[in-house]
């Protein structure tokens, strides 16, 4: 029996790792996943676009996403779509030690992506401007989101559509200008990440759940600022050197460390035990 939030894993989430499909940082990603149960990777769209396969190779890489890809009419939207799927499949392929072409990306009823047949790992995808972002976890669920840290949100009046009353009070107490705007961007990305993790998107009204200030354990809060979730959820926000604000939400289902997520070797221990038991009975 697992207990949510009871995982004996180490420090939860480290800085996002910069990757390219053929780069040399994938060992770091695997180490991160083995040590912490979660990893976030990011890449530049402009670095991946020249590496996109063409024709049948792209079709093979995209798998069932090929139809959706063909429906997209704008070249830059298509390229972003293909590049984000390529990054996601290479990231998953790296940690599962599988061929990216063999991994099948599927979508749940709310559009939440998952790797079909690979439930030892959960994934999340985000992209904005030149940034592509992928979250991976063996803990349970993950959601990631990114936004340009200086995107004008506060002065555009977006706060009242995004924040709880408690968050609006906290923001009003921050120094006006860049710091207050960045505070709102942080809240936005946290809410997007959390709603992606639970598969709700913006249908889960952003004014009905909130987050406290950074610099202390971040928890989901009710509109009045009282706690809404416990230790089973963890949240982190990073600002990348490239100027993007990145947030991640991870649900720890209490499965504990998964030392071997590899697609070719991973076996469910209960299943192994059952087979061994059956074989022992045959021997008797």
């Amino acid at each position: 029996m697992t207990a949510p939030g009871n995982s004996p894993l180490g420090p939860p989430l480290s800085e996002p790792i910069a990757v390219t499909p053929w780069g040399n940082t994938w060992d770091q990603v695997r180490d991160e996943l083995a040590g912490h149960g979660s990893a976030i990777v990011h890449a530049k769209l402009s670095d991946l676009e020249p590496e996109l396969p063409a024709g049948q190779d792209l079709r093979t890489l995209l798998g069932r996403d090929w139809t959706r890809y063909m429906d997209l009419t704008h070249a830059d939207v298509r390229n972003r779509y293909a590049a984000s799927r390529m990054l996601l499949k290479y990231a998953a392929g790296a940690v599962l030690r599988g061929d990216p072409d063999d991994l099948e990306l599927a979508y749940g009823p709310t559009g939440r992506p998952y790797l079909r047949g690979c439930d030892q790992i959960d994934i999340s995808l985000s992209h904005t401007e030149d940034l592509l972002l992928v979250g991976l976890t063996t803990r349970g669920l993950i959601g990631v989101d990114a936004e340009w840290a200086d995107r004008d949100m506060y002065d555009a009046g977006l706060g009242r559509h995004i924040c709880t009353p408690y968050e609006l009070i906290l923001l009003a107490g921050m120094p006006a200008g860049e710091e207050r705007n960045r505070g709102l961007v942080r809240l936005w990305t946290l809410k997007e990440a959390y709603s992606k993790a639970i598969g709700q998107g913006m249908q889960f009204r952003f004014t009905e759940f909130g987050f406290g200030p950074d610099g202390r354990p971040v928890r989901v809060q009710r509109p009045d600022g009282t706690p809404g979730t416990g230790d089973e959820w963890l949240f982190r926000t990073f600002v990348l050197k490239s100027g993007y604000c990145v947030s991640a939400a991870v649900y720890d289902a209490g499965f504990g460390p998964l030392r071997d997520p590899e697609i070719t070797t991973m076996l469910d221990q209960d299943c192994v035990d059952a087979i061994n038991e059956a074989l022992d009975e045959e021997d008797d």
Partner: protein
Amino acid sequence: MDSLHGLMELVRDDLGVPLDIPGDADADLADLPGWDSLNLLRLVILLEENGHPVPVHRLLLARSLHEMYTLVKERR
């Protein structure tokens, strides 16, 4: 903003989304370059300022600008 054309101009000129008007009217929002969920919130505010308040959760149902315009008309 009393027509689909007007709504598309609002999105193009005020939100900076490079639209083909009227060619992109029925395009999936995910297929519009530069469109994202923050633009949707900014559009909610612009519609309010233009006297056409539509709740965010209603506008989330729309898959295209044409569908958004239909929602705006329904709430007049």
